[in-house]
């Protein structure tokens, strides 16, 4: 199903680390490809208008951070990446300029810190994630196989970026005959979550530091670069899995990044402002909670989930009985679901950090998880650094946060740690 969506938005959260200097004001008319804002750190990094239209609203959040820019689309045209027909880049600088003017540079993520990298970056390695493992996530391999020519071209171009090698992480190695040896390595990962997260690949295969960063990119961006270099008009449309509570027509819909989530939910028989629901863009583990100001599809978001919101008052009832751990044997055969509450319930009070086995069962890395988490919450930055915490961002901590009986938020603790390290460098 193709969505008929007329308001399109750019999300500030799709540009982590970018300090936007706006080039437009509310009421301005923009054409597809116009610069909406550039980065104060590096003016070559820009965000482009995905469609032609009028800037409706510019939403800002806490500390005047950019939440979103909403654009009223003038006419329904097939959306696409505005700049097509580039020559295949021969060197790193040419590739950088192609990525910058096509807007694909902002799809790259740097580790440590998980931010959009500066153009001066010299990454040792580039990690291409061609697998997904999160709950409800779609496997990108069918898309890669359909667009194999573009994928190969994009991958060959991306190999110019790192100083050492490009690592392609996927479930089963692909036959990529044309690739030069030594530049590209394929590593197979099992399908269990969190093996699809770039943090898992990066922590296993490298040790990024602020002086020696690495980059991560997803398979779709590689395909889009390949299509751009082939001269094929790249479509920005992707499939979006819309599911959850209170939807009369849940299913797979097609929409482009920036599409209005309210309209997508209406198509699926739900709504964004219904009472007692929580709409999440992305997976329930690391997705973004949708409010009225950020109700646009992000560039990496392929699913919308609707959860029951837990009422703030009222008794817990019989469903508050203790408890079968989902990571235990009895929990795994489904006994847990008899007793557990669904939706956004904390399932317990915030308490001390208890080193339960449940957190270790969801941890894929060799470094011991409890000492790392303790180091993060007690601000023991030396131990956290030594155990490789710089390879992670919040999404890598979501499973241990989910499993923690003390209900700690390790994503928050990790971000505080990363902020301290970043401050130290400045």
């Amino acid at each position: 199903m193709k969505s008929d969506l007329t308001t399109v938005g750019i999300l500030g959260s799709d540009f982590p680390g970018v300090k936007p200097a706006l080039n437009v004001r509310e009421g301005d008319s923009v054409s597809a490809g116009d610069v909406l804002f550039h980065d104060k750190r590096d003016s070559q990094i820009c965000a482009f208008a995905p469609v032609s239209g009028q800037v409706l609203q510019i939403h800002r959040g806490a500390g005047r951070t950019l939440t979103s820019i909403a654009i009223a689309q003038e006419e329904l045209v097939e959306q696409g990446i505005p700049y097509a027909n580039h020559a295949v880049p021969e060197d790193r600088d040419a590739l950088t300029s192609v990525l910058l003017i096509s807007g694909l540079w902002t799809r790259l993520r740097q580790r440590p810190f998980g931010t959009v990298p500066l153009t001066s970056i010299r990454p040792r390695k580039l990690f291409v994630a061609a697998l997904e493992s999160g709950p409800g996530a779609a496997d990108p391999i069918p898309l890669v196989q359909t667009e194999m020519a573009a994928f190969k071209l994009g991958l060959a171009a991306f190999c110019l970026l790192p100083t050492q090698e490009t690592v392609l992480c996927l479930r089963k190695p692909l036959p990529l005959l044309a690739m030069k040896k030594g530049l590209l390595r394929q590593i197979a990962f099992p399908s269990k979550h969190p093996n699809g997260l770039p943090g898992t690949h990066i922590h296993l295969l490298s040790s990024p530091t602020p002086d020696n960063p690495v980059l991560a990119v997803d398979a779709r961006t590689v395909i889009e670069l390949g299509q751009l270099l082939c001269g094929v008009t790249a479509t920005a449309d992707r499939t979006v899995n819309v599911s959850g509570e209170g939807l009369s027509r849940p299913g797979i819909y097609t929409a482009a990044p920036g599409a209005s989530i309210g309209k997508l939910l209406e198509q699926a028989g739900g709504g964004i402002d219904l009472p007692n629901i929580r709409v999440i863009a992305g997976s329930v583990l690391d997705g973004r909670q949708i409010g009225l100001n950020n109700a646009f599809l992000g560039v990496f978001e392929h699913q919308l989930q609707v959860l029951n919101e837990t009422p703030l008052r009222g008794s817990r009832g019989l469903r508050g009985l203790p408890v079968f751990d989902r990571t235990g044997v009895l929990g795994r055969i489904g006994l847990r679901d008899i007793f557990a509450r669904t939706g956004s319930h904390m399932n317990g009070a915030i308490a001390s950090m208890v080193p339960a086995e449940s957190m270790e069962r969801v941890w894929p890395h060799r470094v011991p998880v409890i000492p790392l988490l303790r180091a993060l919450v007690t601000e023991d930055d030396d131990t956290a650094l030594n155990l490789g915490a710089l390879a992670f961002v919040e999404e890598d901590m979501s499973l241990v946060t989910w499993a923690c009986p003390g209900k700690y938020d390790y994503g928050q603790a990790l971000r505080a740690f990363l902020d301290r390290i970043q401050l130290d460098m400045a």
Partner: protein
Amino acid sequence: MTDSLPLQLSSLKRTPGAPHCRNSLSVNGIVLLYIAASLPCLMLGIWQAGSRWAGVDASVTDVLAAGLLLVGPRLIVLLGLGFGLSKLYEKIRNRRTDLGWLAVSWFFFLLLPPAIDFIPMMLALTFGLVFVLFVFGGQGMAPFHPALGAVIFVNVAFGDTGQSIEVAPDTFVVSSWYSALNSRVSEGVDFGILSLQTGNPGAMSPALVMLGGLLLMLMGVASHRMLFGGIAGAAVASLLLTSLPGSHEALGVWSGHLLVGNFLFVLVFLGSDPACQPLTRPARWFAGFAFGSLTILLRVLDPAHPESSFMALLLVSLCSPVVDAAVVRIAVWRRSKRHHG
């Protein structure tokens, strides 16, 4: 981090952001699961205490009433004292606590002889809660299980009180589990998994304790590394002792050592408690194995410590942070070797 949490955050019901749902396991849930798993042991303890007191010919109601009369007041006093102390702690520190006090009072009670005096019992619980749990910051921060601290306090401060079992009118005194095993063996009775033993209310039936341990393990709460490590350590130590050329015949079958005394109870309910166990998996194997073997070694070789499992767990709990630190060092060394040559 917990210290700085305002009170209203402690009762947060909704997830504040990603991840938007949480596991059903909570710290209070873990405490309640441990208590539920040890309930059959308490039932049997009540029954045994009642049948000793009321005599062999008593009816079922008489036995139950006698057992409840003997056990009930002590349990109620301990739970009340634990609750009061934790409320006092909440008031002084201005923060919410969890059900840690409940686990401590409960398991301390299960490790006491059913007819112990009230004053030593209350003093010991106060010691355990205040000096082992609260001064370190509450549940999850104690250096060893606070119930263990309380039991050792009884043993050290009040001598035999913690070790002898005196149930009126039939008085039965065990000075050592080693001697109990000896007397059983000399009577020609082999210790089986289904046999009942006298002692503290919790540790009367090895079968019920094992059932509780199995349940906790399957639910994903108790660490199987601690449990299997402990059983392996005890088995190795007792096999070694019984196979030594000069060993006394009365040591009996090696497997008897695993079932006699409160070794299994301490291993399952105190040793594998997630709040007090080592932080890393290798350290859990080490702690389990060391606890099992030390219990048997101390029991046989040191008659001064008849209830050797308490002392063994104390030693192991105090040593395991060193093993944890070593495991972290090795992990850091391996990581730097892998990535920096």
